[in-house]
């Protein structure tokens, strides 16, 4: 480890870092080298607005984030405590004006995050040199701006942002497309079963059978001519490969897509990741690092982070409680067939096999799960009751939000639904040559909740500007199939079966 790179830390903070890092390693956390930088509130707001990176391309939305953060700070409403980048080495930021106890807390928390970044499978395919990559992106965009001007670049970025969520969350882990094979021009050759003797041929492969086989092969080939072959979730990639973009437009779209994929796993593991970091800062602080005089301030700030509001899930709180719940269950042996089949409430409450497997289990879970599988597997009925979880919904009559239900199954289903695809609708490209006129057709996989129509129409406008030909999307509104189309000038809706 290179000590010189910590120049920004004062000797005292450096001592604190060493101390906390020692505790973290002692507990078995395993992380990249982590570089802390001390920033003033203005700088930290800037870096936060840039999504944690010190250098991004020029765009007004970073200015918007910055305004929200700095106003929040100036009015005393919010303050950024920790920020850390998934990178090797990892970078994390400390707010200059924080008390020592806060800096300790932040460091402990950060080591938790970096351990998670390094070990959780979701991050396996992320670029660990993103710090450099982001700076490269910034330079490339600046160069393009010098060439074509700020206005067109900004407009194009606005449009791309409108489509930014149309990526395939799981594609880094799966190979969606096979290698291209070039046998398209060869005539179809039907091979029946192998017949050793010529005279058996008619019996083993009768004519009808061969015809059927031929038909199947022809269909397969026709499907291949479809474009795309099967529905494609990565709409951005489809546009990138098939839309008539200018060179610079393609360059910008592709780097924005790359950034979207970089950030995606953080969205997929928000609850686990924040929970994991909080679990460890709490453990490190209360068991090792806290001095007596710091307890009250620590408790104050810790509880501030864990606070809940009725209308939202606090990922820090839900996460830390679930991790603790898992650790306790595996420590006491509350799992497996015997436990599942036990209906005696009293026995369940007193259940303790003293297995002590908790620590081992949570390290295993932090490696192989993401938020969805984490909630699906470990959110139990007992936990939901203990944490007072509920489902809420909108009461049209009263024009207000209300608690609807506390039933475990419903809570869990809703929570999982919110997490699926980031709580965003699933949209795919189904036809890049719709009605044989080069139009683009998307489909919304309807799962019970309608799209927001005005936004969908405006998004179509942005999509059309890239595709140049008319674009359309099929979805369901109030239970009826509908196709919304924008041809560059007018919107048109028509009923379809969907």
């Amino acid at each position, binding site marked *: 480890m290179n000590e010189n790179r910590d120049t920004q830390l004062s000797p005292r903070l450096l001592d604190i870092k060493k101390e906390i890092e020692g505790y973290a390693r002692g507990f078995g956390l395993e992380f990249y080298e982590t570089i802390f930088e001390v920033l003033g509130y203005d*700088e930290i707001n800037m870096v936060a607005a840039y*999504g944690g990176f010190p250098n991004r391309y*020029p765009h*007004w939305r*970073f*200015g918007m984030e*910055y*305004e929200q953060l700095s106003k*929040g700070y100036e*009015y005393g*409403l919010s*303050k*950024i405590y*920790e*920020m*850390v980048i*998934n990178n090797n080495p990892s970078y994390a930021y400390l707010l200059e004006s924080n008390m020592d106890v806060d800096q300790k807390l932040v460091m402990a928390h950060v080591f938790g995050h970096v351990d998670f970044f390094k070990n959780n499978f979701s991050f396996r395919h992320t670029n660990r040199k993103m710090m450099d990559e982001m700076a490269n992106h910034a330079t490339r965009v600046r160069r393009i701006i010098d060439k074509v001007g700020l206005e067109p670049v*900004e407009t194009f970025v*606005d449009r791309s942002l*409108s489509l930014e*969520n149309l990526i395939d969350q799981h594609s880094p882990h799966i190979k969606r497309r096979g290698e291209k094979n070039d046998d398209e021009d060869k005539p179809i050759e039907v091979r029946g079963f192998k017949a050793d003797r010529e005279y058996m041929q008619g019996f083993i492969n009768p004519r009808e059978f061969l015809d059927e086989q031929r038909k199947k092969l022809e269909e397969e080939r026709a499907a291949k001519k479809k474009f795309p072959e099967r529905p494609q979730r990565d709409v951005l990639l489809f546009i990138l490969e098939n839309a008539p973009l200018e060179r610079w437009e393609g360059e910008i779209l592709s780097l924005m897509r790359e950034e979207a994929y970089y*950030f*995606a796993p*953080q*969205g997929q593991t928000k609850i686990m990741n*924040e929970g994991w970091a909080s679990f460890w800062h709490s453990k490190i602080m209360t068991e090792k690092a806290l001095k007596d*005089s710091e307890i009250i301030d620590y408790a104050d700030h810790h509880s501030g982070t864990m606070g809940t*509001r009725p*209308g*939202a*899930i606090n990922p820090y*709180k839900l996460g830390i409680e679930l991790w603790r719940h898992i650790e306790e269950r595996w420590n006491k042996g509350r799992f497996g067939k015997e436990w599942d089949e036990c209906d005696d409430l009293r026995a369940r409450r007193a259940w303790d096999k003293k297995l002590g497997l908790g620590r081992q289990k949570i390290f295993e879970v932090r490696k192989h799960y993401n938020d969805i599988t984490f909630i699906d597997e470990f959110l139990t009925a007992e936990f939901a009751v203990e944490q007072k*979880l*509920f*489902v*809420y*919904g*909108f009461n*049209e009559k009263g024009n*207000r*939000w*209300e*608690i*609807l239900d506390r039933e475990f199954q419903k809570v869990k289903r*809703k929570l999982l639904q919110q997490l699926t695809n980031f*709580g*965003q*609708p699933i*949209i795919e490209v189904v036809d890049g040559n719709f009605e044989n006129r080069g139009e683009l057709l998307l489909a*919304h996989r309807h799962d019970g*909740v*309608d*799209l*927001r*129509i*005005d*936004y969908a129409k*405006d*998004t179509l406008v*942005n999509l059309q500007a890239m595709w140049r030909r008319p674009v359309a999307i099929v979805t369901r509104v109030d239970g009826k199939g509908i196709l919304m189309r924008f041809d560059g000038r007018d919107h048109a809706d028509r009923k379809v079966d969907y």
Partner: protein
Amino acid sequence: MPLKIKQDHSRFREIIRGRIKSNLRKYIQKGEMIGKKGKDLITIPVPSIDIPHFRYGHKDQGGVGQGDGEPGTVLAPGAVEGDGHGKAGSGEGQHALEVDLSLDELAEILGEELALPRIQNKGKKNLVTPKVKYSGVHTTGPESLRHFKRTYKQALKRSIASGTYNPVVPIVVPTREDKRYRSWRVQEMPQSNAVVIYMMDVSGSMGDEQKEIVRIESFWIDTWLRANYKGLETRYIIHDAVAREVDRETFFHTRESGGTMISSAYKLCKEMMDSDYDTGSWNIYPFHFSDGDNWSADDTRTCVNLLKTEILTKVNQFAYGQVESPYGSGQFIKDLREAFDGVENVALSEISNKDAIYNSIKDFLGKGS
């Protein structure tokens, strides 16, 4: 060294102000100007631009929450986030701008945001009354002003740090150094009185949405004037073809169906001023809201005359806000504009929807008279 992001920031401000990129204007969200109800919880407007995505209509979506309450319990306004889409940033603090603010602080922020001038008082200009305001915490002071919570926290910290704290017998004895006292500052407040007379058209064409706009706007006007005047009085007049004085509750919830005679309200306003508010010592602010559909041109002439001869001479400022409605012709503001072009203490504003409230407040209060 100026920060790199300042460029992005000023670009964003320009878009918000509508100077550039007008195609983004419709996505600007002002943030709810008033998330009030309950004690002093205020949502502060921070404008943001919401780029359109394919996403769920959030009203039928709902979600999962955490906390007490039986099914059917209503969640407080502002408790549910406006949209459900998670942010793909690295872990940073939340920035939902919601906080306990006193109305004074709110007015200050409002003044800063809108660059409102402080109001020039008239009336007893030289009379100044000292006002005591508790504004801080000191280590010394009289026992009667001891700040219990802060003292306790200090004592608890000390006893834990020094190891005398016993969780089983959690007795904490504050020493002299632990004690904290409220401290005050004397502020000189000009003694002056102000009255706001709200008038609203409640004829059939003013719908719920129009009234909501008036309600929000009047809340901000109240807040600002209250911060400038001690002892602000408010009076409410509603009118269709006839006018009457009502209480606040009725003011915002009455719906009539008659025609509209604006002069009736102005007459009542004048009588009210004559009988209750001596112009020498009162600052008077009449605000009138309507959808701009008056009964006849004759009546409009009567209104203009009333304003010219009776009302404008006595008030600090007369303000007229025209709320756009699908029914009204909106002629009235044009007539007023013609009649009072260049007159100092008349403020006219057209409010087309909730988002326009922000600018309208500036129209009304930006003059500082």
